[in-house]
């Protein structure tokens, strides 16, 4: 069965906007959410910039039953999910509970919750560790809590492939729709900021040590020094076109038309990295030629070697400067499992509004030979958008979205 997978609802919690329209308006204004990390005191730490979701008061968004049981990341995920379902006009209680599933991406789970409980264990003893620790720290926690809250008992899971995971989760959602599910809640919300988490991220070796928010995360710039981490992401309601029609879904943002994932050769190998193949296979999967792609949302690692690999793959597939490329994540930082879903949301909103959001803080280095949409948004008819994401450890994923 080859069900068409359409996105019918979006929910966003991003460092430059809490809520989809807030995020999109800020993004088109070029407004960055990157600033000095406020969540805890980072003096003495080698890194101190972050993209934090502003103004999130959990008591306004979730029932008190869920608050002691969940990490902030899960609270953001549950909030984004409620918004996405509302946007899609889905009332789960009216639908077949086994026809609905949840597949999200994660890289950390409830890291801060875990840190707090470990601190209690050390300082007060194991009697003081919360029973909720048993689920709250876990990678699959967002999927599980979304499933429980909305009574979605169909095929569910979690994808853990660093920043590539958000695209892999959406591809898994499409697989489940093809196997007969009606609706899958997908995407991801990720990126906790506790001291344990920040140091764990720092040891990955790719965080910038810059302390200037305007000169920190600068992919495709000669000044690139790494990336700024961020929290948040997007939740997507993805349905088979048939079941969306059957229940009278009010709108479709677009179709998940193509996907591919590849893995890089071992470090030090002289074989080509896997990104170009991921792009080509995703285009073939969607039956779209390179000339038909209207915009690319880049992975935009912010690391000179990785930026060169991405720019080279784009030039190989599309030709030099022949497709607009953008990285609105320069306004949020990299959100790990939440990053690619947020790019998917931005790409779908580009289609809706006929405008490509800008990349900020970047002066394009000429050696990259790409047409970077920089500084201000660019009006364009967007019918197909390619979203790229790479995960540390060798993951390359690509999704081709098509207007419906």
């Amino acid at each position: 069965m080859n069900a068409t997978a359409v996105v019918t609802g979006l929910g966003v919690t991003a460092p430059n906007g809490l809520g989809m329209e807030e995020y999109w308006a800020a993004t088109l204004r070029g407004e960055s959410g990157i600033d000095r990390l406020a969540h805890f005191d980072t003096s003495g730490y080698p890194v101190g910039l972050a993209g934090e979701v502003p103004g999130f008061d959990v008591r306004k968004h979730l029932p008190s039953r869920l608050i002691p049981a969940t990490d902030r990341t899960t609270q953001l995920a549950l909030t984004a999910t409620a918004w996405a379902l509302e946007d899609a006009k889905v009332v789960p209680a009216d639908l077949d509970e086994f026809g609905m599933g949840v597949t999200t991406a994660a890289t950390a789970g409830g890291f801060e919750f875990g840190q707090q409980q470990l601190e209690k264990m050390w300082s007060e003893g194991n009697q003081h560790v919360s029973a909720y620790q048993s689920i709250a720290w876990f990678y699959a926690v967002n999927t599980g809590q979304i499933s429980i809250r909305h009574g979605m008992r169909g095929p569910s899971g979690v994808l853990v492939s660093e920043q590539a995971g958000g695209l892999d989760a959406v591809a898994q959602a499409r697989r489940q729709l093809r196997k007969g599910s009606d609706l899958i809640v997908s995407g991801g919300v990720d990126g906790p900021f506790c001291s344990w988490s920040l140091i764990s991220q720092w040891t990955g070796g790719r965080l910038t040590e810059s302390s200037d928010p305007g000169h920190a995360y600068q992919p495709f710039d000669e000044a690139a020094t790494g990336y700024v981490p961020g929290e948040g992401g997007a939740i997507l309601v993805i349905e088979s076109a048939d079941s969306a029609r059957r229940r009278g879904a009010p709108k479709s943002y677009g179709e998940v038309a193509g996907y591919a994932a590849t893995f890089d050769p071992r470090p030090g190998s002289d074989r080509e990295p896997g990104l170009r193949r991921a792009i080509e296979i995703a285009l073939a999967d969607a039956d779209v030629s390179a000339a038909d792609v209207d915009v690319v949302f880049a992975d935009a690692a912010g690391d000179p070697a990785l930026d060169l690999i991405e720019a080279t793959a784009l030039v190989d597939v599309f030709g030099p400067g022949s497709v607009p490329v953008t990285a609105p994540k320069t306004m949020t930082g990299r959100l790990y499992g939440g990053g690619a879903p947020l790019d998917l949301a931005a790409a779908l909103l580009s289609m809706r509004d006929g405008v490509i959001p800008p990349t900020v803080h970047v002066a394009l280095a000429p050696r990259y030979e790409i047409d970077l949409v920089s500084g201000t948004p660019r009006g364009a008819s967007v019918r197909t958008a390619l979203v790229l994401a790479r995960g540390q450890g060798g993951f390359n994923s690509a999704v081709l979205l098509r207007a419906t």
Partner: protein
Amino acid sequence: MTTNEEMTIDDLRRILRESAGEDEDVDLDGDIIDVEFADLGYDSIALLETGGYIERERGVSLDEESVTSAETPRKFLAVVNDSLNSGTGQ
């Protein structure tokens, strides 16, 4: 705080609120003593958390199995008060 004083339904209401929160569709101040925890919005992890809270507050040791299998506040209170009365408090 360590005390062998019998635990009442009002104590339990307070502890449930503090340790596990309150379902928006449930009136915890109503007549809940024989209402099943599932209908009050509490699952087994919530009961485990509530049991842990009582162990810390009362300095008592509760049997995990009995705590999570108590279906109603009346049965839950019986488990707690049995432990308090049998002097398993430390």
